[in-house]
């Protein structure tokens, strides 16, 4: 299962590198249409994106969520334990 996320991990790495190189100040992750995510997917977002974003100086992260999906309502708010500059917006 984790190997299925290797491509996404690579993509997140590219995103973080570009954000760092370009000195960007905001990174938005839009999950509003994601109906289901398994534990490997959660781990990939947490470790490869959110934790890495926390290491980028001056970067603020925003996650757009949907109230319609239980997993988002239950799990996304706990991402605040991984990053200081995080805005979570539910629609």
């Amino acid at each position, binding site marked *: 299962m984790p190997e299925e996320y290797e491509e996404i991990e690579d993509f997140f790495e590219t995103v973080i590198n570009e954000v760092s190189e370009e000195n960007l100040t905001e990174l938005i992750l839009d999950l509003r249409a994601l109906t289901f995510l398994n534990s490997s997917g959660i*781990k990939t977002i*947490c470790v490869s994106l959110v934790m890495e974003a926390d290491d980028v100086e001056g970067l603020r992260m925003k996650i757009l969520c949907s109230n319609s999906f239980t997993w988002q309502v239950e799990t996304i708010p706990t991402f605040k334990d991984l990053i200081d500059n995080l805005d979570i917006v539910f629609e």
Partner: protein
Amino acid sequence: MTDDENRAVEKLQKKIRKLEAALKIVADHSGKAESRMRRQFEVVSETIPVPMIISNENDEIVFANLSAQKTFGHTPDDFSELSTASLYDHPDDRKLFLNILSDKGEVNAFRTELRKPDGSVFPAELFSQPIYFDVQDCILTVVHDLTEVMALEKQLRQTQKMEAIGTLASGIAHDFNNILAAIFGYAELVANLLELETDKRKKGYLDNLLKAASRGKSMIVQMMAFCRQTEKEKTPFHLSAIVDEVVKMMSNLTRSDIDIRSDIRNKEMIVMGDPTQIHQVVTNLITNSVHALSDKGGKIEVILEKAVMIEGQRGEILIPRLKPGTYARVTVKDDGPGIEKGIIHSIFDPFFTTKPVGQGSGMGLAMVHGIIQGHNGSVSVESEPRKGAAFHCYFPVTEDDDRDAKPDVEPESVGKGDEHILFVDDDLMVLEVCSELLQNMGYRVTSCEGSRKALKIFKSQPKDVDLVITDNAMPEMSGTALSQEIRKIRSDIPIILITGMLFEEESELKKTGFQAFIQKPFDQRKMESVIRDVLDAGKEV
């Protein structure tokens, strides 16, 4: 440690804390997702009214939902000690099932027979897919119990068969009526010509001829009862009175080693119908039981009780299926040899009999079926060889008050007449014999074999005709249509319908303009009486 080393250590510690937090997030997410999905599975599996069984690779049952527990009559603990193979009636079916699953990766509509703990077997269709359940590779199997579907299919086939036989019998009855009408008519005409003293021998032959014709007539009456063509005006009556009367009558007529008893559990139930026909139903059923007990004697019980049918109720197979409502149930059961499984689906067919040739017409149960259906009721039978038989007859219960039933009165010989009658029938033999009978009664008769021709004749001399007698089923124009056309010309003309089949009740026929009807085959006295009544009633007005 240098400052750089301290910062590196601090950074690593922060990373470890975050990884721990991430691990917690993932674990929480997994736990919640798993418990949510498990709950969803439980709700779905316990709610659907379909048996679901999950078995592992060792053929052990690891899960059986509530419906499976109900269907098979096992508790969850029982299931955990069972192998899936033990649920099959034929062990080879399980092997075949597993082969299909292995070849195709799934099983769709696999027909088999499954076994319950009491040894009973039921037909089923199995649908199956591999599933990962409780950390092991398993097979999810959904069981479609076909018991009710197959019972309904059987019921539908039986109903269609009875309808088809009814149509056939009704056609035969119609043609036979015309033939019998001619036989009766000519026999009576010949009888009128004979001298009582000198032609005694010929008179004897004629009497035998009429007796044979009467037997034919009685057969037609039975066939028509089966076809539900002899509907009389229905009256409300207490069913208990009929049951009581028949049981008493049959007890007196039956030998003493056959004990016939009634058990009236509800005396007040009123049904709407023809008491004579219901009398016939109970008599026929008791007669069959008496015959079944003729070798060794035994007991016949006639039970009358209330039965409530509810929507979607499962149970015995009823022919036809009943609407929900309250019914009076008459059960006639005996402790005789029972009915063999192979013939139980044919017993309501006309002319089906197990009696030796010449001892039974095979119309008894066909009549029972026809009469009950004509009363919007239903009949079912349950029997096992050597355990007796029970017939359950259902009649809708009505709220109406009982009324005194009008008994059929044998017509008395009445005066003849000289009026002019226009007689219409497309059957030449009936036309000829009736015309002659009418002439013998003194009437002037214009006979006509076609309805259009009859209408033309009536148009040409409407005032000259005193009475029209017409058949109903005629190719050019029905008797009903002819009567309507005649009424347009002269509204006060009395019209009598002469018919072999009754498609409506008497009251319905009168609504169409007929003053009376004569049922074929008829005798001279009946004909005389009806005609005289109609003509005299017209004069009184």
